């Protein structure tokens, strides 16, 4: 591990904390309908929207109404996206005259963007028209992030309020988060990206003759505006196939640093919002610290193994050492301007948060670097996590941690003055168990069917007629795919071919189901939990209450998350990355 990397990790978290503090307080005020600067500017717009939509902003919803509004909105927008993709050949802004997107691919992509996953079974520059990028895809980058924040805020309200069924009004929350937070931040952010070299235009693809007489044709488009919300909304779906490794998406080390910070910005800020709303800043800070501990552990592992490189590389007479003139390490699938350090940090940030943007190719990571990426997603995307999803997932884990500690000391478990009952624990268990079952079940299904194995690239037999030879990296590719889909992450071990004209159905269908259930089952559980919590009384802390802050709480929370994740997934990780690590050590 290079000293630069350690310094980078420290500076990164300092900047995240500095951004999260004011942003979290702003989110709290915006979602509470209080006055703030952008409301003074755009307040009239908000009122006109409510009148147009027939929404009474003072009328709040219970958890079932709130949930049904979320499901309705997601369904309608998903349908619109599917239609836009299918008919992009008849819609404007299609300079390359691309065909309509094939049915299964359009289905998979529509689910993917609606669920904040942004899994891409296609390459952006060869499949999507400017209209599709802008209307069908970038729109969902906003919407799915907005929905995530709404659910998190509703659950926080459930914790903070007492003896009520009211959790807020989804339509009001959704409009506010777009109008006052997401769109204004993205305007500034997108212009910063343009200043670094990210393109923003409506030009057709640009061609030129290269120095040796070859031709390069680079697709242009409104990339910066899509890039900003792609990162801030932890969406991760790239305009280009190479995602944030493409120089037109992420041209400089500075743009890269800001992209990483922006992934953690809102998830970090929601910790502050939580602390403000439940009137316990210490609780919010403790949750932030628990996330930071888990994240730093992952960063140290990835940074170490990527910088060390592999025996295969070392055996070829290559210089793998870090110095002031070379990055060294495992540079396959990484960009020189980011080197090992900024790539390793990005790997952890994008898989901790359910972002899924990549600035290096994860399939080419060292086995244990790749293991961390997979495990991060399997932990349920709660270490910062997706925008909103990370916060409501973390609150579920907090409830489980408090429940377990209650069992250990033989008292009724209590969270921020609310006694947890069996319904709460059942919803929390549903939240944790369903994703695990989905990941392991779908992985097993894909590995035991020919059509599932046909997508694997690492390491396929070179002779097409030869039977598929099991290889741990092949298992990792499939396991990564379903962990990513269920966790709504969207990054990939991209050697896996998830869509081809020969096999259009299998991965589209199973990944689509994994993304859908991985999004909406946890949202349902979180909303049910919110409804149940909001009904309860808040009792003042007594001498026997377990405080939801401080080192003991942080330690307990971290331990619960690691134990639940490790127990569930350790066996399958043994057959993938861990065996591969041993094979690599033996290879010469």
């Amino acid at each position, binding site marked *: 591990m290079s000293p630069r990397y350690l310094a980078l990790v420290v500076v990164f978290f300092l900047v995240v904390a500095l951004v999260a503090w004011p942003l979290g307080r702003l989110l709290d005020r915006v979602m509470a309908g209080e006055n703030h600067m952008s409301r003074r500017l755009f307040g009239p717009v908000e009122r006109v929207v409510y009148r147009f939509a027939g929404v009474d902003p003072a009328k709040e919803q219970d958890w079932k109404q709130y949930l049904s509004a979320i499901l309705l909105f997601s369904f309608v927008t998903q349908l619109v996206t599917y239609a836009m993709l299918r008919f992009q050949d008849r819609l404007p802004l299609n300079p390359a005259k691309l065909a309509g997107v094939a049915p299964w691919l359009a289905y998979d992509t529509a689910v993917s963007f609606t669920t904040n996953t942004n899994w891409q079974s296609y390459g952006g520059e060869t499949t999507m028209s400017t209209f599709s990028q802008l209307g069908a895809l970038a729109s969902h980058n906003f919407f799915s992030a907005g929905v995530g924040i709404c659910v998190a805020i509703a659950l926080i309200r459930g914790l903070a309020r007492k003896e009520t069924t009211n959790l807020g009004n989804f339509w009001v929350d959704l409009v506010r988060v777009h109008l006052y937070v997401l769109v204004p931040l993205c305007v500034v952010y997108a212009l910063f990206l343009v200043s*670094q070299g990210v393109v923003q*235009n409506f030009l057709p693809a640009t061609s030129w003759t290269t120095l040796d007489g070859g031709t390069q044709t*680079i697709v242009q488009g409104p990339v910066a505006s899509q890039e900003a919300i792609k990162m801030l909304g932890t969406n991760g779906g790239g305009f280009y196939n190479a995602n944030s490794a493409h120089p037109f998406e992420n041209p400089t080390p500075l743009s890269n640093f800001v992209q990483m910070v922006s992934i953690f910005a809102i998830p970090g800020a929601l910790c502050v919002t939580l602390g403000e709303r439940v009137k316990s800043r210490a609780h919010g800070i403790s949750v932030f610290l628990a996330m930071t501990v888990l994240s730093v552990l992952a960063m140290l592992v990835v940074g170490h193994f990527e910088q060390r490189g592999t025996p295969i590389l070392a055996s070829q007479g290559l210089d793998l050492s870090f110095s002031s003139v070379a990055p060294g390490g495992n540079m396959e699938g990484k960009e020189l301007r980011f080197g090992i350090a900024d*790539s390793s940090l990005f790997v952890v940030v994008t898989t901790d948060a359910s972002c899924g943007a990549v600035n290096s190719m994860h399939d080419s990571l060292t086995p244990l670097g790749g293991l961390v990426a997979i495990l991060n997603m399997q932990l349920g995307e709660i270490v910062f996590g997706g925008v909103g999803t990370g916060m409501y997932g973390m609150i579920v884990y907090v409830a489980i941690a408090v429940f377990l500690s209650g069992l250990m000391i033989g008292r009724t478990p209590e969270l921020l003055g609310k006694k947890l009952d069996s319904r709460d624990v059942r919803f929390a268990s549903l939240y944790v168990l369903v994703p695990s079952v989905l990941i392991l079940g779908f992985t097993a299904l894909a590995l035991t069917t020919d059509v599932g194995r046909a997508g694997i690239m690492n*390491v396929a037999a070179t002779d097409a007629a030869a039977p598929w030879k099991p290889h741990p990296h092949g298992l990792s590719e499939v396991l990564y795919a379903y962990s990513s889909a269920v966790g709504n992450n969207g990054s990939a071990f991209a050697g896996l071919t998830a869509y081809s004209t020969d096999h259009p159905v299998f991965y589209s269908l199973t990944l689509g189901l994994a993304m859908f259930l991985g999004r909406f089952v946890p949202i349902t559980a979180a909303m049910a939990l919110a409804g149940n919590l909001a009904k309860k009384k808040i009792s003042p802390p007594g001498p026997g209450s377990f405080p939801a802050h401080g080192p003991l709480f942080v330690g307990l929370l971290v331990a619960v998350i690691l134990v639940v994740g490790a127990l569930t997934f350790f066996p399958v990780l043994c057959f993938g990355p861990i065996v591969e690590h041993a094979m690599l050590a033996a290879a010469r």
Partner: protein
Amino acid sequence: MRQLRACLSITLVLFVLTCVVYPTLVTAAAQLGFSERANGSLVMRDGKVVGSALIGQTFADEGAHPEYLWGRPSAASDVAVTSDGASPLVVTYSGGSNYGPLHPALADEIAARVALLRATGVEGPIPVDLVTKSASGLDPHVSPASAAIQIARIAKARRTTRERVEAIVAAHTEGRTLGLLGEPRVDVLAVNLTLDRELPMTGKEPTP
């Protein structure tokens, strides 16, 4: 019914806000404030576009071009995309090799590139970035160490001194941002364009 009306109208409003107002605003500001960067940071030579300052170029046959600085190997490919007409649009499709660390092709391709470099007289350890494929396939940079081992070859091909080539490489070498972010890097296209301008090939023309 109330929910449906709310849903449809708010969906419409949000589409207009995020897909019309927002990108239009950003595009207008970008074109006014940073038009060159917003349009791809294109590099001109003799009135013609020869590349983008941000996009790396590769040589189809590197052995035939000892006079240029070589960039990193690329897994980018050309893909025909247009659905109609006789002349399909071929676009440069970005991406990495996706080779896992044990993929046999990884070792084979690195070995081939090491052999190519050795054939040009490179001795000693080779910086790993010069023989591994980048994530985008469009990486515009190599490390200073990777440029250094090519200087003797370029100087010989251009019949000049190592010092002159070294000076050009140094002029297009950038350090870490704020001393912390990113890696020191050499801009390959900028070096090659400067080489052509300041140390043009005599006799055999390098470019068709």
